[in-house]
């Protein structure tokens, strides 16, 4: 099979899977095996692209040209491949988890759920492999639209209210800023294709580029830079597997990935460094990191706390991209992977706690560690990964990010990153520690008839896998590092 076919398949497999899921909807086990098989096939084809890209080959694919110069086209480049690898790999794990969660929680409309899940993955693949901004924008919007039914899955008023904020902010920013920025890019540069070193010629006025950069940073609402972050906490009404894959991995990472790609391949690092707006946007990203971390500390609801933690961590990635140094970009791209593994594990744990112990608030988790040791253990490991201390992979990305701030001579931002790491210790670590070392709540100890046990085994297996991943990434970061190096 040629590399182009693999690329074609990467986008089509999840779409076919969605059709398959729709057709086999009546038979649960058959339907879930469609998801799992499609996930495996997708991961395999993305993996097979890895050696091809590392060998420096160009893999391109053109679907159709809508208007002269505006084509739906794909090209594999290393950063996109990295994103696709993470998303497709974690799709399998999430499917596994979702099987346990959805059945354990007795959710309705599971066929619709799994089908839209698959379409979302197809959109993510489209974003990862997009050859130009036009294609990217199309899949970006598709991703917003087809995750909406997942967010509002419960169908309650609260879910719809959350969905309203979700759609409103993501569509609003993309139409008002992102699309405008894309059109302006076309008019200034005459192309929308991603190119190493950027597309703008040297004589483009810096003021215009500044404006453009601001439009991009705010337009990509999925990157959840404050003040356009509110959709993310609002989206927490979704079932936990959705929060896990989409709002820790696919959707938010699509956002920061787009920003990374725009910084690297539309502006180019040289240009980016010279734009006056970059400095201000760096401070904005810094503020976003710090404020979101502070807000996270005050959240009682576990999923809300994790959501604000995501907003804060996404700020790291944006900040790294805007630093416009090679270490900054490296750290930024690495954090996409590390945070993905860490946060998905945390959400898996939150979901497992909900299914097994029916608890959603942070205060209720005291003493739970003794009855759900695997879940809380995984929670501990993942927390360390987010904070960025050994023995987890998060260490590497924070390391490179700090290096990046040094390279750029931004000592203030470096201090800020340190402080926010301390804050993340403050809002994450107490949860597993209290679960293990505090006494259980009196209400729980008295009631022994409903013994709390671990979540269903598929869910447990899934969170075990991702937690192990967090640790393995400390030992084997090289695969990722090589890919990023090839990308820069």
């Amino acid at each position, binding site marked *: 099979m040629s590399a182009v076919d693999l690329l074609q398949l990467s986008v089509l497999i999840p779409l076919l899977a969605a059709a398959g899921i729709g057709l086999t909807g009546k038979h649960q086990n058959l339907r879930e095996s469609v998801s799992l098989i499609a996930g495996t096939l997708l991961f395999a084809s993305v993996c097979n692209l890895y050696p091809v890209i590392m060998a420096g080959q160009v893999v391109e694919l053109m679907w159709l040209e809508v208007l002269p110069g505006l084509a739906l086209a794909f090209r594999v480049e290393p950063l996109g491949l990295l994103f696709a690898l993470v998303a497709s790999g974690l799709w399998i794990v999430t499917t596994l988890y979702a099987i346990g969660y959805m059945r354990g929680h007795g959710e309705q409309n599971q066929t619709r759920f799994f089908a839209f899940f698959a379409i979302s993955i197809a959109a993510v693949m489209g974003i990862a492999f997009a050859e130009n901004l036009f294609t990217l924008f199309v899949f970006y919007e598709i991703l917003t639209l087809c995750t909406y039914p997942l967010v509002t899955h419960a169908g309650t008023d609260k879910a*719809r*209210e959350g*969905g309203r904020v979700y759609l409103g902010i993501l569509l609003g920013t993309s139409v008002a800023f992102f*699309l405008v920025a894309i*059109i302006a890019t076309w*008019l200034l540069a005459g192309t929308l294709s991603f190119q190493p070193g950027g597309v703008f010629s040297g004589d483009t006025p810096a003021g215009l580029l500044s404006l453009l950069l601001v439009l991009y940073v705010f337009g990509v609402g999925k990157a959840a830079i404050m003040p356009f972050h509110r959709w993310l906490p609002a989206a927490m009404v979704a079932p936990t597997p959705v929060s896990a894959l989409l709002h820790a991995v696919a959707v938010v990472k699509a956002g920061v990935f787009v920003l990374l790609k725009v910084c690297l391949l539309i502006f180019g690092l040289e240009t980016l460094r010279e734009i006056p707006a970059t400095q201000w946007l760096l401070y904005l990203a810094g503020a976003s990191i710090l404020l979101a971390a502070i807000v996270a500390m005050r959240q009682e609801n576990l999923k809300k706390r994790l959501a604000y933690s995501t907003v804060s961590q996404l700020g790291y990635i944006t900040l790294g991209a805007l630093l416009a140094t090679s270490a900054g970009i490296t750290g930024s791209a690495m954090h996409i992977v590390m945070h993905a593994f860490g946060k998905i594990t945390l959400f898996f744990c939150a979901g497992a706690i909900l299914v097994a112990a029916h608890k959603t608030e942070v205060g209720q988790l005291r003493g739970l560690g003794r009855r759900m040791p695997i879940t809380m253990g995984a929670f501990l490991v993942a927390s360390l990964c987010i904070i960025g201390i050994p023995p987890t992979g998060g260490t590497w990305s924070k390391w490179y990010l700090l290096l990046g701030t040094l390279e750029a001579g931004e000592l203030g931002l470096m201090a800020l990153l340190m402080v926010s790491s301390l804050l993340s210790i403050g809002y994450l670590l107490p949860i597993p520690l209290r679960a293990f070392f505090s006494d259980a709540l009196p209400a729980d100890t008295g009631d022994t008839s409903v013994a709390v046990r671990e979540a269903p085994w598929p869910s447990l297996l899934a969170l075990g896998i991702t937690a192990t991943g967090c640790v393995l990434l400390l030992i084997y970061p090289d695969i990722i590092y090589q890919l990023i190096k090839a990308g820069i």
Partner: protein
Amino acid sequence: MLSHLPILQVILPLVAAPSCMMIRRANLVWFFAMLVSTAALVVSVLLLQQVLDTGPISYRLGGWEAPWGIEYRIDLLNAWVLLVITGLGTAVLTAARVSVQREMDDLRQTVFYSLYLLCFAGLLGIVATGDVFNVFVFLEISSLATYALIALGRDRRSLWAAFQYLIMGTIGATFILIGIGFLYMMTGTLNMADLAQRLPEINSSNTVLAAFAFIVVGVCLKLALFPLHMWLPNAYAFAPSIVTAFLAATATKVALYLLVRFIVTVFGVDFSLTSLPLQSLFIGLGLMGVFVASVVAIYQVDIKRMLAYSSVAQVGYMVVGIGISSVVALQATLLHLFNHALMKGGLFLALAGLVYRLGSSRIDAFNGLGRTMPWTMGAIVVGGISLIGMPLTVGFVSKWYLITAAIESDMWFVALLVVLGSLIAAIYIWRLVEAGYFREAPVARAATVGEAPLSLLVPTWILIGANIYFGIDTRLPVEVTGAAAQYLLGGIQ
């Protein structure tokens, strides 16, 4: 037979219109009207094919030679517009049966189809003919039929709306007639090609200038260009749903065609845009139309009226394209003519479905519509997305060309304002989404209301589907309009 296509295009519906009165049974009349309009569609397809193959067709009515007799002249421009009108007219008519049944009694239904075909014939006649007096005659035929069609609305206010339009329309038509009279006085001919040849020699005369002014203002009245649009919102809001869809998809398009025809072919771009300050006037009025009408649309309670204001805004975009007056800009105008017909046709048909079930098109009728009428609501959303101009819909294609044209002519602010205008459209479309998906339907309604009947839904979705199809496979509209714009402005650019 094939050589008589140009006249068949017009004469078929014209003769069929009175025949409707003899059939009387509503369903039969509808079927008969369908046959006629489908035949007209086939004729227009054949015509376009013929023009693409062999170039412009000239047809002499009754065999009289051109400057003396009436000539029907079909070039790429009107072949394209004919196709748009017959296509949309047929699609709307397909949906008409149930909606008309619901909104009118038996006798009126027969009258409705008769008037519909009459209006159809009038519009086609305006487009097909190459004779300016003939234009006036067909303009009157279609206008009179339109007034009556609007007055068929079941709300008594439709009478007032029809009367208002009658006054404004008559003023417009009179202006056009005065202009034509002046032209005849100065040149002694009514044939467009002939006029085009003779006018450049005498175009410094005040009479020609006056003729030009009368004609442009008259046509702009029919076009509902801001600030001559006052008749349109009422007419659209109170007319029967099907009539609104039909008018929105065809009537303003024909007026736009007339404007292009007079400005570009008859008077010539050199005269009308370059030596007169019309260029900036059109761009200014067009953009003001876009903004004023879009903002007003946000505050409308009746969604039919909201979309009517949106139509005024869209006319603004088309006129901006004429104002920029480059090949690409004219192409953008012609593209938007087609694209806007698809959007508004689809949207108003979807509204017809809503009115059919709920008897209202007010914003509160939309509450909870995503659950009770998912397909109708879906059509409105997709049509709305196209109206905003998102990629992969037709709305994007024409806006893209318009922006490109503005930049090529170094009009940055025009490009910027076009983009901003689309954002306002996003606001009023979002209102519908908000009501349809995020508000609850009244309890009493939820149980009783179902999806619109299939015979309404299918044509709606054909038009909405066309919005997406031609947004992805853009070859047909882009190639034809590109060639037409090149043909019209060929000498200059």
